[in-house]
């Protein structure tokens, strides 16, 4: 099996290549794509490597917004003083993804575009109400994640950055799979001037919110406020590590821990 390999220097160039080469795929950190290719589950005709586009990995604060380039690696986010000052929960979340090897290669844009149901970032993107900026438009988090491994992205569309409104406070807690270290359940709780958002990853086929918890936390932003809220197990995932009832239960446990982390 062979494929062409392109390393564009700008994002418009990357988009042009993706638009013109049939069966081409953007390559970010490759943490999912490369194993998939190795197992011959994916056979792209061309890989468009985004790692040589410097503008895509910058991290900055503009007013009340933290902007993170799509090619910022997990380790960059985890160790960024800017992120730690603006939205500490994001730095902590990034520091808990996979292992050092994964964090040294994997990127925020790659993770969000892949939308693995057990990935950490989707919970923060939805929880913080981030905006996904692509080469052609801005997409609200609520409209972005459309299903398991599915997003609102067009086939040749590239995420260039993510813009996170700086919240009042927030926290992320996850129950790691002891084998893979993916989130069996990860809960991101964010308090903003507009209200509270509780976003859950890992538990179901895609990231989702828990309105009942959000209402309770809007009244009292304490772990106790969510402690007795049970999430129905009906739509939860089930696998050899965690059945659906256990996952539903863990949402409450992780929500409490996330609130505690937010309060600090």
């Amino acid at each position, binding site marked *: *099996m062979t494929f062409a390999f392109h390393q564009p220097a700008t994002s418009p160039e990357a988009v042009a290549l993706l638009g013109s080469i049939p069966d081409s795929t953007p390559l970010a950190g490759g943490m999912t794509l490369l194993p998939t290719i190795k*197992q*011959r589950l994916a056979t792209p005709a061309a890989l468009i490597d985004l790692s040589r586009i410097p503008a895509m990995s910058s991290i900055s604060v503009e007013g009340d917004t933290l902007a993170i380039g799509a090619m910022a690696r997990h380790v960059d986010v985890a160790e960024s003083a800017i992120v730690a000052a603006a939205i500490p929960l994001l730095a902590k979340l990034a520091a808990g993804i996979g292992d050092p090897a994964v964090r040294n290669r994997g990127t925020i844009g790659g993770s969000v575009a892949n939308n693995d149901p057990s990935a950490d970032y989707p919970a923060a993107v939805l929880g913080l109400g981030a905006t996904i900026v692509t080469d052609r438009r801005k997409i609200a988090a609520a409209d972005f994640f459309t299903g398991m491994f599915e997003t609102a992205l067009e086939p040749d569309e590239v995420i260039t950055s993510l813009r996170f409104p700086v919240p009042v406070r927030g926290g992320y807690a996850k*129950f790691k*799979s*002891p*084998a*893979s270290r*993916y989130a069996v359940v990860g809960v991101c709780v964010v308090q903003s001037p507009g209200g509270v958002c509780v976003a859950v990853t890992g538990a179901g086929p895609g990231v989702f919110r828990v309105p009942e918890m959000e209402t309770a936390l809007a009244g009292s932003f304490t772990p106790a406020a969510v402690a007795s809220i049970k999430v129905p197990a009906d739509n939860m995932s089930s696998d*050899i*590590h*965690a*059945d659906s009832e*256990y996952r539903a*239960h*863990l949402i409450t*446990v992780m929500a409490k821990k996330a609130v505690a982390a937010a309060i600090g």
Partner: protein
Amino acid sequence: MSNIIGIGESPRRKEDFRFLTGRGNYVADMKRPDATVGVFIRSPHAHAAIRSIDTTAALALPGVEVILTGDDVAADGLGGMPCGWGISNAEGVPMKEPAFPMLAQGKVRFVGDMVAFVVADTLAQARAAAELVKINYDVLPAVVGVLEAVRPGAPQLFDDVPNNLCCDWEMGDKAAVAVAFRKAAHVARLSLVNNRLIGNPMEPRSAIAEYNAGTGHYTLWTTSQFPHVVRFLMAALVLNIPEQKLRVVAPDVGGGFGVKQFHYGEEAVITWAARRVGRPIKWVADRSEGFVSDRHGRDHVTEAELALDENGKFLALKVHTLANMGAYLSTFGPNIPTNLYAPLLGGVYTTPVIYCNVKVVFTNTVPVDAYRGAGRPEATFVVERIVDVAAAEMGIDRVEIRRRNIIPKEAYPYQTPMLVEYDSGDPMGCLEGALVAADVAGFAERKAASEREGKFRGLGYSTYVEACGLAPSRFAGRLGARGGLYESATVRVHPTGQVTVLIGTHNHGQGHETTFAQIISEKLGVNFENVDIVFGDTDRVQFGMGTYGSRSLVVGGAALSKAGDKVVVKGKKIAAHLLEAGEHDIEFKEGVFSVAGTDRSKTFQEIAGAAYVPHNYPLEVLEPGLEEQAYYDPINFTYPGGCHIAEVEIDPETGIVTLVRYTAVDDVGTVINPMIVEGQLHGGIVQGVGQALFEGAVYDEVSGQLLSGSFMDYTMPRADHVPNMNIQTHSTLCTHTPMGVKGCGEVGTIGSPAAVINSVVDALSHLGVQHVDMPATPNRIWRIIQNATMPQAAE
């Protein structure tokens, strides 16, 4: 400068320099000129008939040398993979032993079963060709669990193996046990599962095979724990080639744990193919391939009953086990759940009568064989769990019930009711030592502290014994072994007085190059750095049965010790001649031969020089040279044992079990290198903790697919899963091995699962929990807590 490093010292490991500096010599690193690459096509189905295999398109690809299938194996009249043990039922009827072809013939029986072998110039070409081979399967219903496999109407793996039953095996006195149960004041009952494990050594299995058409010699480099046995089995029973024309080399091997102590079909196929292709062939398994082709371990379903008198004294034990063999009999397969299991059901206790029935069952899963501990962790788990159940039911303290039943030190040698005779041991001493070392007295306080944090804390004991140092050949032969189980060593003293040891065991992490050098350094008085250990090459080492069953030091070290003794005996003869004294007046100490009571002496080096430059030498009565060989066949197994104490904390909210303390006081006999023994204990215990808390191979019951087929889903224990461990020894000396050694490679894995699960059950005992199956995952523990604390539904 003299640098004799002997028994009881802990020098740094000789082998670590090359490993830590990236200079190890592994099969996958080797390059042979003009080598091709081989890829195995494996069955994607658990059970299917092969209708047709079409290789036309694949063979047309560039670089493809050959594609071999089961038809080619049959056309060449080659044998199947041999089983090294033949067990029988109580009436003497031999086990069912269906053919295990090198490449599937007509049918596949597990996901991963080998269907074809593709050889091409490059790996990419071989993989591309493998994808183009068209295999037409008729998928058949599959069965993966033992309970399901023996049910009427279950899918049948073989036409001539009714009910998938390989053997209905038993040991012990059934009638005496029945009598004892009738007298019992209390009977404890326990149903348990011993979870299926995948060894996952760090280095995947790999091989290179080469054929020399000029001489007719084959060479196979392979990741094996026992290259001589591979040579014997493959030459004599599989490929029908002269044994002297096959060289098997197992160079540095990155971990075995049993996974590499079998003769695998891949080894035979690649060696056979190398001759057909006429070029060397290299195969390196990828990790996914390892999951579905490395032999798995454990996988028992067991019902046990323990009869006790009113004082908690054990009267009898009855055990019925269904053991999963997987789809075929692997090299040691049927021996593991029978001969290495039932004899240990007495544990360290005086239980007078025992009966064990094992139904050995075929299923559509990877063949099951020995994995570190092999049979003995399963036995220990049954015994140590049911002892705790009995104690709880009778209201007797768990330590007290053990004290009442432990074999006293004075009673050794102790004949158990299950064939084996323990030569030595002091289980009570280990228990008492462990109670102190683990600060059991302080447990109540630690438990109260945990409770204040909302956590459950538990303590678990495992007072265990195992049988290792495999094995007395005559004894093993009576039990069904088809080979011997001795070991051999050659001590080659060079003219300089420096020494090369050639030994039939295999070092793949155990530190033999250090331990064995210490034995010779002390025995011959030569410097530690002047002793090299050679192993793993059938063209260099005379013969050997390899490394498994904690046998290397016990059996191989004994052979080495005896060979060293022979060198000293010959050295004394030479010294007597040179010093003009009687042979019996020569003393040998710390590398110096001297005439007793005089200052006349010769160094070991001088004697070696004289042996190879025999100008002044008793040639009439003594051959020149200084090289001695010994074979050693043990007269009994060795019986290491000890007491392990685990302490866990459980978070009832998540079900997470955290191992917070671990103490082991083990009797491994003489300790040659304390550092290495401690390392072996560490590794063994972590593997046992892995079984208890994390690991479990899971098959889909319908499709027979391995659901835990990668590290994403199979949880290996990691460094952050275990606390610092308190490892101590309380040794009694083995009475029949030359140095008093007992072996230590498997004790950690044997003692620990029961200790951990007993601590988990203890932590949950206030909820009425009597047993927890392995692995005690968070989900499983949470579910148990939920079930125990949920208000009972109204009738």
